[in-house]
């Protein structure tokens, strides 16, 4: 639209205008989802969640919970299933995704029941009173285990945990690899992590019988492609699911997309209970069960000529979808697909993708959406190749970059890179990072025995996603049968009211990126006004807003596409104002310029009228309007970039409308003795096209870097081998704070994008995609080894720096002094021994005696015998202020008379569950002394595992040693009391006769 470019003056666009959003945020006036009470009579929901990774739900007894005063209703999966269908997915496998477990829980944190009560406090109290009987099933959350043949099936009906496999080939990868001088291969695993917005999910759901409609306020961010899916699940046409977003957001980074399942769940709960229901997710719920990037396993191969030309790439990737495929997944694996050449000229690419399900929380959008994982593979192998080829890593990249004159550049898998000068950006990076001097410092440090490393990473930043790219998960045959999809619609509305005030309405659901500020800048330029004069409404109401399929906030789409819709409406308004002013000023519209609040005849500064007067005519004097000018001023635009077509039969797709460029350099120094990483330098150069607001760009660059740094160094949503979730608080899931974030050097190279009137490219993901690779490259360079996995926490770096292949090593099983215990390998194991002043028969008898058991089990009350060698009890365990009562079951097994037995225990309570198995061996030392050796293996799940990980090993060791100490205490006085010892010996003779 070149004519638009001509008419927009550049007074505000491009200026570092202060953010419109900040005053409300900084003065506490901003209203978030939790601040909203849009209707009276709202009740509060709490969600009971599965403590088990995989368990059949045998029975849910809500009777005790219902009796609690203030509880209004309790809704289970079966109740919900009567009202809704499953949430559809593009992956056609028989795994129905409901937002609540129906008869089986598939991951820790999966909703089991929803309590609706007068307060959240009461609702949580009631959750504690719901008795759920689970049949615990073997579980697998970890990618490495799930691809093994004997892994338990997550969804029986699917028959496999691999739910989709697709292979792609572009150019001639086999020939490229066969003809290569050198081939480099790199295998990796990447953890799951999430960008943890400060505001968690929130939903207020209200079902009304008349009109028959669901109204849901939530901090949903889009993409609105899932609105029809939600309506479908709720079995209503789209207009009967009205979604409303609040005025302000506490961040999302893609994560809030996943609130979609709670919108459906709470909508169903409101319908079932007949009450408006509000649910605000807490942090433990968020970390446990919201969403995350998918963890991955992969191998990447790169074919090179001997002088460093990249001739072929081979990607094999397995992505963990979690327990279900929640839309828009599996998009994370396909977002980078069309740009699989990265920023390089390579033509021959093969891609093998595998999607698996595990007993873990479903994954979804997270800042970078597949980018960090893709670039970890590509940019690590580039670095490895550089070392192997003996070419400087910066130089190797330079030799392969797409040349400045080659744009628009059609990538082998279909992406069309709009504009760029990647070599200029790389040069700028090396300049601001002072690369040559840095290399000298590295050489000097190494001579001094220090571990200093440098790492680079470069990549394109796709923005404004084509909504059809996810259909690459289907074969072209499957796509032909389905409805055709393409494009990325953006909409905007600009109105001028009768008093001449301008309002912009967006459907971009900003989560803190400053859309209102930038929209106001664009409109101010078009209308000759000040940005303060422009009101921007970013709240979306699907019943009244001009939304479309691609509305929302994801994939950097604001600066790539939405601005175009805003500019277009603004120009339509400007044209109308010019017509109105021309009629009043006796000039032609072409002669009118809009400047500083006036519509003036160009060149005659005394001949003009105020903007608001010109505008008000459209409202107050429709009869006097010139020609075919329509009354009022209400301009809207819905656009979709023409380049974003459907995938072709060869699986090529123009996946995004703009492709920015990011190139980063990290220099790190490692303290081999502690594993500590010091970021020595970090430099980042971006090409975001026109910077619409440099201050916002700077904020985005910093934010993306910090998220990338967190992923590189600290963050992992961890599961143990049994699928227990281990990172339930910010004490376990560590994000960088201001202290951990170094100052960074930022540079810019601007190549205008032809994709929109402003020349802007999307930004936001930015360094979040490159920082993990850049930092890892630097660490690998410092340590001189490539088998490096994330996060690069202290222990792991220490292990790498000291030549360990694993981060933990077993220790001797039996310790003679203090009992040992460990939480490594994710099960808690431990052992110990004590010497008891009693003959072996006596010890044996005590272990088999229920009264003795009751006395020696810590905190045991009401021990009852269920069967031979099977007992149940209520056990109260208090460790410091942490106190809980558990229902425990104890079993004695594998009894070998007076020699050994196995003790099995299971305890379940509101804090979670624990189960363990211990082997006890007895050996007579003398007639009157017995050596007791024990070893145990225990598993702890539920909240205790998620929030108390650090203490579990010690606490378990303490409890088990308490058990044996209690045994010791009970035995010792007896053995010292002559008559009692005599009596006992007598009894043993008797019992021996009995057996």
């Amino acid at each position, binding site marked *: 639209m070149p004519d638009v470019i001509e008419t927009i003056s550049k007074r505000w666009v491009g200026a570092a205008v202060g953010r419109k959003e900040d005053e409300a945020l900084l003065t506490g006036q901003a209203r978030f989802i939790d601040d909203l009470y849009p209707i009276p009579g709202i009740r509060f929901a709490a969600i009971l969640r599965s403590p088990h990774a995989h368990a059949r739900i045998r029975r849910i007894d809500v009777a005790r919970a219902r009796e609690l005063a203030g509880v209004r209703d309790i809704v289970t999966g079966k109740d919900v299933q009567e009202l809704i269908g499953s949430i559809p997915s593009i992956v056609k496998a028989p795994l129905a995704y409901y937002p609540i477990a129906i008869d089986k829980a598939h991951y820790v944190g999966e909703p089991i029941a929803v309590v609706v009560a007068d307060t*959240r*406090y009461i609702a*949580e*109290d009631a959750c*504690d009173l719901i008795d759920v009987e689970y049949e615990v099933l073997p579980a697998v959350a970890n990618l490495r285990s799930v691809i093994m043949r004997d892994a338990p099936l997550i969804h029986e009906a699917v028959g496999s945990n691999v739910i989709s496999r697709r292979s792609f080939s572009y150019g001639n990868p086999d020939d490229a690899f066969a003809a290569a001088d050198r081939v480099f291969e790199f295998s990796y695993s990447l953890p799951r992590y999430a960008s943890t917005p400060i505001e968690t999910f929130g939903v207020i759901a209200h079902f009304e019988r008349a009109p028959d409609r669901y109204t849901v306020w939530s901090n949903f961010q889009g993409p609105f492609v899932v609105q029809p899916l939600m309506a479908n699940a709720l079995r209503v046409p789209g207009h009967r699911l009205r979604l409303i977003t609040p005025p302000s957001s506490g961040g999302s980074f893609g994560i809030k997309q996943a609130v979609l399942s709670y919108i459906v769940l709470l909508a169903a709960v409101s319908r079932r209970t007949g009450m408006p229901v509000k649910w605000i997710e*807490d*942090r*433990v719920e968020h970390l446990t069960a919201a969403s995350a990037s998918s963890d991955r396993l992969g191998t990447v191969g790169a074919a090179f000529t001997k002088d460093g030309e990249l001739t072929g790439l081979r990607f094999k990737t397995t992505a963990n979808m979690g327990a279900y495929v929640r839309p828009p997944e599996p998009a994370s694996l396909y977002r980078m697909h069309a740009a699989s050449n990265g920023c390089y000229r390579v033509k021959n690419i093969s891609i093998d993708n595998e999607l698996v399900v595990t007993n873990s929380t479903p994954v979804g959008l997270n800042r970078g959406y597949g980018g960090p994982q893709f670039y970890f593979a590509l940019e690590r192998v580039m670095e490895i190749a550089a070392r192997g080829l003996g070419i400087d890593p910066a130089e190797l990249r330079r030799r392969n970059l797409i040349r400045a004159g080659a744009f628009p550049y059609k990538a082998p898998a279909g992406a069309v890179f709009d504009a760029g000068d990647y070599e200029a950006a790389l040069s700028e990076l090396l300049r601001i990072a002072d690369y040559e001097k840095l290399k000298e410092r590295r050489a000097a440090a190494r001579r001094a025995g220090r571990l200093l490393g440098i790492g680079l990473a470069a990549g394109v930043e796709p923005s404004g996603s084509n909504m059809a790219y996810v259909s690459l998960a289907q074969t072209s045959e499957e796509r032909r049968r389905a409805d055709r999809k393409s494009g990325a619609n953006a909409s905007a509305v600009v109105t001028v009211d009768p008093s001449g005030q301008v309002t912009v309405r967006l459907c971009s659901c900003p989560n803190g990126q400053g859309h209102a500020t930038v929209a106001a800048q664009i409109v101010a330029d078009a209308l000759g006004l000040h940005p303060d004069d422009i009101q921007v409404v970013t709240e979306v109401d699907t019943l009244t807003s001009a939304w479309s399929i691609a509305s929302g906030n994801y994939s950097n789409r604001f600066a790539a596409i939405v601005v175009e819709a805003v500019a277009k409406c603004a120009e339509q308004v400007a044209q109308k104002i010019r017509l109105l002013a021309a009629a009043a000023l006796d000039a032609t519209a072409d002669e009118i310029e809009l400047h500083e609040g006036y519509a003036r005849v160009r060149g005659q500064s005394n001949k003009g009228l105020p903007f608001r007067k010109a505008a008000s005519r459209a409202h107050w004097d429709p009869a006097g309007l010139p020609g075919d000018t329509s009354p009022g001023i209400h301009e809207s635009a819905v656009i979709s970039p023409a380049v974003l077509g459907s995938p072709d039969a060869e699986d090529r797709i123009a996946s995004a409308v703009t492709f920015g460029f990011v190139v980063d350099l990290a220099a790190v120094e490692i303290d081999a*003795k*502690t*594993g*500590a990483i010091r970021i020595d330098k970090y430099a980042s150069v971006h090409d975001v096209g026109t910077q619409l607001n440099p201050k916002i760009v700077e904020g985005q660059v910093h934010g993306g870097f910090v998220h990338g740094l967190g992923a590189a160094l*600290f963050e992992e949503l*961890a599961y143990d081998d049994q699928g227990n979730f*281990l990172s339930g*608080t910010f*004490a376990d899931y*560590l994000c*960088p*704070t201001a*202290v*951990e974030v170094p100052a960074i050097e930022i540079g810019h190279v601007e190549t205008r994008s032809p994709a929109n009137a402003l020349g802007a490219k999307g930004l936001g993901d930015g360094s979040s995609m490159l920082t993990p690779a850049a930092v890892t490259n630097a660490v690998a360079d410092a340590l001189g080894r490539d088998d490096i996995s994330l996060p690069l*926490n*202290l*222990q792991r770096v*220490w*292990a790498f720096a000291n030549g*360990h292949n694993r*981060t*933990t*090593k077993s*220790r001797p099983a039996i*310790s003679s*002094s*203090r009992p*040992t*215990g*460990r*939480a*490594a390998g*994710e099960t808690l194991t431990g052992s110990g021994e004590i010497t008891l002043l009693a003959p072996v028969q006596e010890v044996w008898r005590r272990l088999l005696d229920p009264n003795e058991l009751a006395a020696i089990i810590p905190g045991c009350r009401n021990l009852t015998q269920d069967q031979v060698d099977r007992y149940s009890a209520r056990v109260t365990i*208090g*460790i*410091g*202020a*942490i*106190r*809980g009562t558990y229902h425990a079951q104890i079993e004695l097994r594998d009894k070998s008379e007076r020699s050994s037995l196995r003790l099995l225990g299971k305890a379940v309570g509101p*804090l979670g569950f624990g189960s363990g198995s211990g082997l006890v061996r007895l050996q007579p030392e003398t007639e009157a002394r017995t050596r007791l050796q024990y070893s145990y293996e225990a598993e702890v799940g539920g*909240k*205790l595992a998620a*929030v108390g*990980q*650090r*203490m579990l*090993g*010690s*606490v378990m*060791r*303490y409890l088990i040693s308490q058990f044996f100490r209690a045994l010791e205490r009970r035995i010792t006085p007896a053995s010292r009391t002559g008559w009692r010892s005599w009596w006992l010996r007598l009894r043993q003779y008797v019992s021996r006769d009995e057996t």
Partner: protein
Amino acid sequence: MKPVGFDYYRPQALSEAVALLADKGDEAAILAGGMTLGPMLNLRVARPRSVIDISRIQALKTISVSNNVVITGAGLTQSEALRSDLIAREVPLLAMALPWVGHFQTRNRGTLGGSVAHADPSAEIPLALVACGGTVVLQSRRGGRRIAAKEFFVGALMTQRRPDEIVTALEWPRTRPDAGHAFTEIAQRHGDFAIAAAACSLRLTKSDRVEHLSVGVGGVEDRPIAIDVSGFRGQAAGDIPANLSAHAASSVTPMEDRSASADYRTALTKVLVERAVNAALDMARLQRNRL
């Protein structure tokens, strides 16, 4: 994340608090700064029937000095302690440990006594107290008692405090002008729970031999421990860091968890003890030269 309901008491006097506690026993939790109990209540891992808030008891906020010890009231906040010139002068090891405790926001509420009573194995204040040979003062309706810090800590979150007792004060031996002290730790991020921490206090003779040596290690075992340094007193200062750190590493039985294996904690014990001893030696030499 809302706590289970509890009865809230806010006594103004220690006698009142002790009486309440005698009445409520182990169904009560004592609230001081709330930096640990607060999250534990919200997470529902702590479910006390009663919460007794001792933060308004002025008698627990004092700092006093006797001949040999500085006595800090249990209710003194960590930032008050950090701002105290008296503590900086008389108990430098505590002053050195405090910046490692959480963040300044949490130190504004977190108390010395709360940290000791909670007995996190990674906590810095218990380690400093153990390392300098301090004492925990407890009060119940039955009377008061004093327990050496080395005996007070039993395990992770476990102490000798009985359910009816309140930690009322900590006694810190006063330093000598020629003593050197050091505190260091490794945590994933600043303010996180220490994976390992080491504290050292020592003095040097004129002939550069070590006397009055004490070394403590935190975060490694399930409670802060004092390393047995009896074999090192009187040794030449130059030999001490390497030998003592090797000794410390071989004498610990480390915990294992996801953030650190036993091997890693053992390695850190060696590094941190060596760094702490070196830093304490430097300070002692500086102090000696100044006198």
